């Protein structure tokens, strides 16, 4: 396979991180243009434009309160649920604007799944946690339900741990298992994009490592956008990285590029200070 330069100005050859299949030819699946998120009078995020590439892992880094989560939740229109939130700019998913009138938000959310910081399995059995969303989206045949539940649990490496107790409450699982169940619950709907809001921050180091390996395995098949405060983790898993920072109490995108470049040869001095640990 011949290496392909990801961006024309990149001085870097493809390292190990970029060797994943779909990342060689960057093809945007989400195009964000001039996205601004306001809550009442305060601006959480101002004028962000970037592309999310298909099959890649894009990490959003930066200090707390700089708009990373607002950015993430405007990609699946979950920000709509906050009454005071006002979103302007445009987000295109496979070329279609998700904020256009007449967009089926519920269908959008089946294609752009989300995993939250705190694992939030429903107070149902393990099986029902996965079956219920499928049923609500019209999957009726019991063998299909069964197969998709098993596949999703296999994908997150939970199948062997829970196959004998699928009908026990999901809340009895450990924290790491609950988070993997939540990832399975998002995957069971076969989304093409997975948004992850600090999925490891509430987990112990071992569970965190398991989830991190899982995220790496999603690369290629799924497009992952992950918010993380763990710079080492971002460095390990991300193909692309976006650095957000607060300027005059407004969240801004400072720098976006290949992860290696952003971490090793950042263009902006703020980015350099942040990734080296001297600020933030």
């Amino acid at each position: 396979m011949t290496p392909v330069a990801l961006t024309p100005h990149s001085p870097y050859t493809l390292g190990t991180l970029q060797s994943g299949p779909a990342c060689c030819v960057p093809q945007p699946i989400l195009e964000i243009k001039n996205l601004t998120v306001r809550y009442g009078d305060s601006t959480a995020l101002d004028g962000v434009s970037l592309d999310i590439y298909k099959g890649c892992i894009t990490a959003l880094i930066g200090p707390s309160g700089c708009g990373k989560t607002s950015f993430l939740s405007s990609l699946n229109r979950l920000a709509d649920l906050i009454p005071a939130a006002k979103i302007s700019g445009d987000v295109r998913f496979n070329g279609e604007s998700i904020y256009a009138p007449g967009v089926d938000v519920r269908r959008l959310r089946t294609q752009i799944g989300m995993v939250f910081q705190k694992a939030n399995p429903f107070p149902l059995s393990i099986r029902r946690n996965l079956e219920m969303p499928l049923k609500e989206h019209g999957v009726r045949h019991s063998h299909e339900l069964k197969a998709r539940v098993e596949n999703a649990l296999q994908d997150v490496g939970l199948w062997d741990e829970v196959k004998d107790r699928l009908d026990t409450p999901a809340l009895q699982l450990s924290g790491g298992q609950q988070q993997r169940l939540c990832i399975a619950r998002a995957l069971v709907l076969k989304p093409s994009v997975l948004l992850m809001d600090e999925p490891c921050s509430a987990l112990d180091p071992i569970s965190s490592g398991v989830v991190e390996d899982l995220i790496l395995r999603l690369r290629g098949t799924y497009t992952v956008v992950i918010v993380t405060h763990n710079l080492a983790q971002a460095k390990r898993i991300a193909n692309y990285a976006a650095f957000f920072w607060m300027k005059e109490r407004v969240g801004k995108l400072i720098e976006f590029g290949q992860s290696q470049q952003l971490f090793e040869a950042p263009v902006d001095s703020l980015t350099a200070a942040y990734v080296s640990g001297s600020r933030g």
Partner: protein
Amino acid sequence: MQPVQPLQSVTSAHTDRSLQLTLFIVSLVTASVLGLIVLFIFRETLPALSGPGMLRFVTDESWHPLENQFGMLPMLWGTLASTALAIFLATPLGIGAALFCRYFAPRPIVRPFRALITLLAGISSVVFGFWGLTVLVPLIARFEPPGASLLAASLILTIMILPTVALMSEAAINSVPESYSGGAAALGLSKGATIRQVILPAAKSGIFAAVILATARALGETMAVLMVSGNVVQTPGSLFDPIRTLTANIALEMAYATQFHRSTLFVSGLVLTFVIAALAIAAHRVEHRAGSHHAA
């Protein structure tokens, strides 16, 4: 260097101790009042419960104390039927009101609506009875005389326990973590599916506790039921039959009952007390379990 302060302060230890003592005495008084009431009822029931008279509550045909007939079953059925029907009606109404308030009501009307339900809880039972007697009973009588009936009693009870179900269910629904509804929305679930599949299952113990407490209230309600139920001692055969409940019976006959008759009234009071206490404890247990469940 600062001078070393002595750790022991006599005055603060003293005030703490006297506060503790005062509160202990206050609690003791409260607890002993309850204990004394139960003890008193027990003592008064003794003539009826000792000796061979006990079985007559279930074996006697009906309740004619002046003719030595002490069958309580018709009144027990009256109590149970009116309570069951009221719960049957108030549960969906109350849960519906709570869900409406939380998920569907336009913002400006949420507060007035909740205030209205709270106000409903504050109306005294004799006023409900009065309203029932002058409005509800004549209305029912137009379709099926005499009007004072099981149906009238149940409807009045429904209105009376509705605030309990609605307000407690709303509290239970509000205590469902936001992360559940956010998670459901992120899966593309509709509002209806979220409520059905996630919110109600998560809030079910709290809602169940609400229904149990409402049941206790309906069982114990006296005045309003007495005013609209007709007070004929009979096992109700239809919704339009007059009934007499155990509580109404006590209120009606206490004034002139003597000896064995008087004692039997205390027996029915004791039974009601135990049932309601058991329900209250059950509600508390269920709610407590719900609390620990969310913390997990």
